[in-house]
């Protein structure tokens, strides 16, 4: 009996160690897209290589994306986006560093869908701004998936719309994030 208890305790301790080792999750294949609905034209772009890291213990989150990886249906739009709007050669990366403010309400060990509030610093075009974004963390088979939809203003990030197309391009851009994360094995 004593041996069995010791054996079971050992298994439990080992399992605990394994579980606590899985407190960080990441992806390098996350998806991010944006939509800008102008008067004449809707501009959309997709990116399939966003990096995301989440520490389930502390609620720290980090995202990073290379601007040149955004793909547009039209090559000319892609060139204008990189050269005139976000100046990708000068500011190649956009990132977000923040915190799930209600992390205690998210049970990463329990499958389910949790509303999350994320607060942090979003840096685009070399301009950093504090943002608060509502999102969703869906835990499936022990792996979290992050989803968020939020709006930003181009003017907040010093992204200028040329006067000639000012009427056609919206200052508001809707960003959609969709990242399925895997456990990070250190």
């Amino acid at each position, binding site marked *: 009996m004593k041996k069995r208890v010791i054996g079971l305790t050992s298994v439990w301790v080992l399992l605990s160690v394994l579980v606590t080792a899985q407190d*960080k999750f*990441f992806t*390098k*294949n996350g*998806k991010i897209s944006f939509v800008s609905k102008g008067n004449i034209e809707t501009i959309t772009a997709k990116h*399939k*290589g966003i*990096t995301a*890291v989440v520490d389930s213990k502390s609620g720290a989150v*980090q995202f*990073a994306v*290379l*601007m*040149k*990886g955004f*793909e547009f*249906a*039209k*090559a*000319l739009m*892609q060139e204008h986006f990189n050269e005139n709007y976000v100046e*990708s*050669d000068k500011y*190649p*990366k956009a*990132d977000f*560093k923040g915190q799930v403010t209600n992390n205690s309400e998210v049970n990463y060990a329990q499958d389910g869908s949790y509303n999350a509030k994320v607060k942090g610093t979003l840096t685009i075009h070399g301009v950093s701004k504090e943002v608060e974004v509502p999102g969703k963390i869906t835990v499936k088979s022990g792996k979290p998936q992050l989803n968020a939809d939020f709006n930003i203003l181009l003017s907040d990030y010093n992204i200028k719309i040329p006067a000639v197309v000012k009427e056609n391009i919206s200052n508001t851009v809707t960003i959609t994030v969709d990242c*399925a994360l895997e456990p*990070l*094995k*250190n």
Partner: protein
Amino acid sequence: MSKKQAIIISILLVLAAVAIYVYREYNRTNKDLATVAPDYTVQATALVNEFLANDSVAYNKYRNKILAVQGMVKAVDNVDGDCTVVLGDTMELSSSVRCLLDSAHAATGAGFKRGNQVTIKGAITGFKKDDTGLLGSDVELNRCVIGGE
């Protein structure tokens, strides 16, 4: 034909040519890189090391260029029909070259196995320096196709 008519016809032809050019330019899509010759042919690890040594010098050298990268397949990430082939020369989760296949060629990476030696051609999107200390820094390519010709 009078001189006046000839001038009018010439102007109309020029306007038609301009209209066709503008229409084509506006609707131009990104080229399939299968038929585009690479500007550089490089080894995956050598490319990563170039960026690690001095990322701004390396970025200025390779920006807007088409690269054919030779290396060993460390991983193949298939997510929702998209395929990213990760190239390097060691199997650890350290710095790599991440090649996102063109959606028209996504299926061509399906048969790749870890350890295969391959050449992948793509448009460089840059170098993602790792701020976390956990993930490794990567050179990223998109619109990739298999082969280096």
